[in-house]
């Protein structure tokens, strides 16, 4: 389903969607992001990895303004993220976010989870919102659960719904914050399969994950972070073929051994 046509968002491959310049963030006295520079081109599939506490989740949460930052710049095509809340809101509209803990709304059905923002943010009429939502639920292979509540679904199913919900707003960049870390092993695959299919449509994605198999299969760029810094930034091929930074090498050895 997803693999058939190129995603409408995949348009211009050369144009950068997001440019991050000299990004710095502190949590109180702790310097969690240090001089981050990163360009997210249209159609890029970037995997961000690194040991826990390295700042990868914080970085991805800065990209859509869930976290504030103190220094640097995040530029979206026309608008830049910063102190101005209106600009932040505009930039956020271009991103879809998938969380580690799914964060579905428990009091709403699967369908209502997906249509809420369509109706309230994009102001779509009910019928159209439901059609769009059903299209995305079909893409993540869970249309039959549209009337179910999140608590009736397995973790893997919930995460697929969360992906569909984020896709509904037609984001230019999909952000994944450790989407499989809270899942039981047998459910990881169903979520990764959906993400792989999504990647094939050409949608721009940035994914924080420890799933190196997924990274190898999908990513065209790997960003390795340690202690708040981007230590290594390489093509997927280069990263896995062993030219990596010693710190990254060590991490990779540890992760791959599992």
């Amino acid at each position, binding site marked *: 389903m997803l693999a058939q046509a190129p995603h409408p968002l995949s348009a211009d491959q050369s144009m950068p969607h997001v440019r991050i310049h000299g990004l710095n963030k502190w949590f109180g006295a702790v310097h969690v992001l240090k001089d981050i520079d990163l360009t997210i081109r249209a159609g890029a599939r970037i995997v961000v990895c690194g040991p826990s506490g390295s700042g990868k989740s914080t970085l991805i949460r800065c990209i*859509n*303004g*869930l976290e504030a930052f103190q220094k640097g710049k995040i530029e979206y095509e026309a608008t830049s993220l910063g102190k101005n809340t209106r600009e932040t*809101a505009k930039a*956020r*509209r271009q*991103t*879809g*976010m998938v*969380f580690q*803990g*799914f*964060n*579905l*709304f*428990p*009091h709403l059905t699967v369908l209502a989870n997906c249509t*809420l*923002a369509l109706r*309230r*943010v994009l102001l779509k009429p009910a019928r159209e919102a439901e059609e769009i939502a059903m299209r995305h639920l079909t893409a993540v292979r869970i249309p039959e659960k549209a009337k179910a*509540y999140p*608590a*009736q679904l397995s973790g893997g199913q919930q995460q697929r719904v969360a992906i569909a*919900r*984020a896709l509904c*707003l037609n984001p230019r960049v999909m952000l994944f914050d450790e989407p499989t870390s809270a899942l039981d092993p047998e459910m990881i695959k169903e979520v990764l399969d959906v993400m792989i299919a999504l990647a094939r449509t050409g949608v721009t994605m940035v994914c924080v994950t420890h799933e190196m198999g997924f990274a190898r299969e999908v990513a065209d760029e790997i960003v390795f972070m340690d202690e708040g810094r981007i230590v290594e930034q390489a093509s997927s091929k280069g990263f896995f073929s062993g030219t990596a930074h010693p710190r990254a090498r060590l991490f990779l050895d540890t992760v791959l051994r599992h």
Partner: protein
Amino acid sequence: MGFNLDFALSTIPTIMEALGTTLLATVLSCLGASALGFTLEMIRRGGGAPGLAVRFLIDFIRSTPVLAWLYFLYFVMPFYGIRLGAMTVGILGLSLYYSGYLAEVFKAGIDAIPKGQQEAARALSLNRRDTVVFVIAPQMLRNVAAPLGNYLVSILKATPYLAILAVPEMLGRAFDIASETYRYAEPLTVAGILFLGLALIVAYGVKRVEQRLLAAGRR
């Protein structure tokens, strides 16, 4: 002069005439206190100078007796040119007083919602109002059903305070009968039993709503 059952029974219709007033005062005060309490909690959550002011206001409300509020509104406000009817003052007083408590209840109910819910709402670009209406409030209501119900029963039981403003609610009516007939035991007992019955009915209703909400949570 023992307890006269026939006399007690004869007071029931007269006291029951005031049932409507008691119920009206209860329902309107509940609505007022809930709306005001929720608004106060939202302002407090917003922080800044208004948030700080509301924090003090809530503490102030909770540290003063409800009778003081009723007397103040009824007897002091007219000096400042604000003259309100007894029933209006009664409902206003109870609403104000209980809004302080309900703000605390709502606070606990909102604090219990996982942080990820607000983040998901923000990530979906829902504005603040929509986030409150469609994400926070429904989950909060589920969390606060039990304590909220208790306060609704409390408000029902606080309506006799309105007797001091000569609002013709049930206990006031019972007292009227008592002072006319010099028999206190019967009318006051009848009023007490009627309140007990009402409170039990409300408590039962609250329990049912709570169970349904919990069942919905498990779906």
